């Protein structure tokens, strides 16, 4: 039971990302803030579909492909596949909807590698701030994972509470401190300051972090990601077709997926094991498919809805030992110019809460060497990983030229 490595190896480096597009996160956030301050409706703002469509047009332009070249579409965020296709005027022969980029992208690679379609656009649009989306509280219901709503009578909900309890478990198991955790948010903010399109660009000092208010103790406001509007699109095609595209191709070298769905409501693997076993399994698959090890990773990104993701993922994927993630990240190691630059665009903590989509764009820009002031020198490979409700997902990219 499990994956077939020989077959996975056959599709390693066969599909490339050839186009990326994103929306004006910083400008949109600021204009919405000013409108709210003035007591006005935010006129001219885009809804989730408008954001998705704009990101798609930019990704298409980035790729040099024509709309007619797109024959597969997968959508994420609160948008419906049919309406996105209708708005863009595309009748794809392959499609999916409703998941995060790290889940959809490997499926798009498989579809292209199998011949089911040739060129896929992954498209995400989410006007979550304008819509007043709230992550936690009594309105959360059974359309969400069970742990998100089942504990209402005990006053327990929100994704943040999952990570507050997880960090507390890390503290109880390993003696890690809040001060050590602060390095995550402070470093990622530093990276965002090198990205004009990042929503949050004010530096966070040690004092700022240590004196910040708690949301779900032991997590502080800086440990939580943003909630902002935006859209992202990513275009993939065969390695052969990629050669004729506008920009250098970025190859998908590997991916891995391991789950701990059983016991997810009780938070078993999350609290007993800090997801280390599933992270390792996901990483093992991804590294084996790509023919790489942790030593080959020149740029690393993690889903960062909460700061806690980063040390846990570094531990689980084998960059350091369990319990040592917070020591590992100190002294500039994860900064641009450090040994393992992490979340260089500002991630979801400071750039934009695009639920893993903005990280894929950043990986591509880094590997094309077009990341400007935040460019990681010699970026040849980029790994992304994510652990969420019940699973661990990873992707490895390689510069294709």
């Amino acid at each position, binding site marked *: 039971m499990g994956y077939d490595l020989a077959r996975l190896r056959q599709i390693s480096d066969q599909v490339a990302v050839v186009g990326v597009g994103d929306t004006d996160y910083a400008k949109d956030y600021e204009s919405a803030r000013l409108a709210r301050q003035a007591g006005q409706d935010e006129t001219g703002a885009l809804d989730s579909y408008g954001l998705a469509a704009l990101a798609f047009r930019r990704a298409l332009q980035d790729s040099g492909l024509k709309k007619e070249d797109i024959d597969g579409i997968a959508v994420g965020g609160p948008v419906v596949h049919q309406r996105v296709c209708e708005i863009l005027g595309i009748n794809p022969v392959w499609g999916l909807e409703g998941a995060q980029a790290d889940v959809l992208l490997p499926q798009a690679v498989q579809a292209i590698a199998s011949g089911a379609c040739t060129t896929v656009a992954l498209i995400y649009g989410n006007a979550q701030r304008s819509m007043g989306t709230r992550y936690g509280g009594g309105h959360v219901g059974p359309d969400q994972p069970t742990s998100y709503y*089942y504990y209402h009578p005990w006053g327990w909900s929100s994704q943040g509470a999952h990570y*507050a309890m997880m960090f507390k478990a890390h503290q109880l198991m390993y003696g890690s401190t809040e001060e050590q955790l602060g390095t995550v948010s402070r470093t990622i903010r530093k990276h965002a300051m090198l990205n004009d399109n990042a929503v949050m660009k004010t530096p966070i000092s040690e004092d700022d972090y240590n004196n910040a208010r708690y949301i779900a103790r032991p997590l502080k406001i800086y440990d939580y990601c943003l909630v902002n509007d935006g859209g992202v699109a990513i275009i993939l095609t065969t390695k052969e077709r990629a050669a004729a595209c506008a920009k250098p191709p970025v190859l998908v070298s590997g991916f891995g997926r391991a789950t701990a769905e059983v016991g997810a409501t009780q938070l078993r693997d999350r*609290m007993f094991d800090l997801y280390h076993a599933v992270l390792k399994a996901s990483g093992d698959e991804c590294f084996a498919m790509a023919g790489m090890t942790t030593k080959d990773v020149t740029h690393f990104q993690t889903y960062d809805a909460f700061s806690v993701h980063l040390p846990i993922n570094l531990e689980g994927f084998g960059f350091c030992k369990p319990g040592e993630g917070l020591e590992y990240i100190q002294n500039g190691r994860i900064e641009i110019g450090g040994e393992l630059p992490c979340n260089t665009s500002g991630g979801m903590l400071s750039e934009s809460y695009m639920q893993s989509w903005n990280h894929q764009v950043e990986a591509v820009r880094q590997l094309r060497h077009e990341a400007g002031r935040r460019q990681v020198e010699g970026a040849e490979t980029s790994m992304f990983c994510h652990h969420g409700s019940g699973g661990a997902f990873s992707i490895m990219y390689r510069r294709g030229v």
Partner: protein
Amino acid sequence: MTERRPNRTLGPDHDTFWSYCNLGEFRLQKCNTCAKVQWPPTPMCNECLSDQFTWTPMSGRATINTYCTFERPYYKECPPPWEAVLVELEEGPLFMSNPKGFSVEGRPRGTPVKLAFLDCEDDAGPFKLPVFELA
């Protein structure tokens, strides 16, 4: 005194759990075939796929696994600071709950606790809520 709480999840199997609570009994489903104890209530044993369970009394003995304190309000019924604790029942399951008569802050993993019931009420009416106090 009855505490107002956010709504429970009700329905088949869930109703049975809360009915026993209302009798002051803390019972979970134990599989008749393989003896695995389930939580939350389920239509099928996730070990052996049997659908035959016995609602079995738990000892009420548990230990603290982890915890958090909400410092901003998520529910109008639960004003901050609001403490939640995840306990490991002697029978195996992890059970989300609240501390009764003590604060979780500074408590080590493994701290022994024991079951208590709190008189509560939600939109569906009065009910008894399982919580944990220091053992």
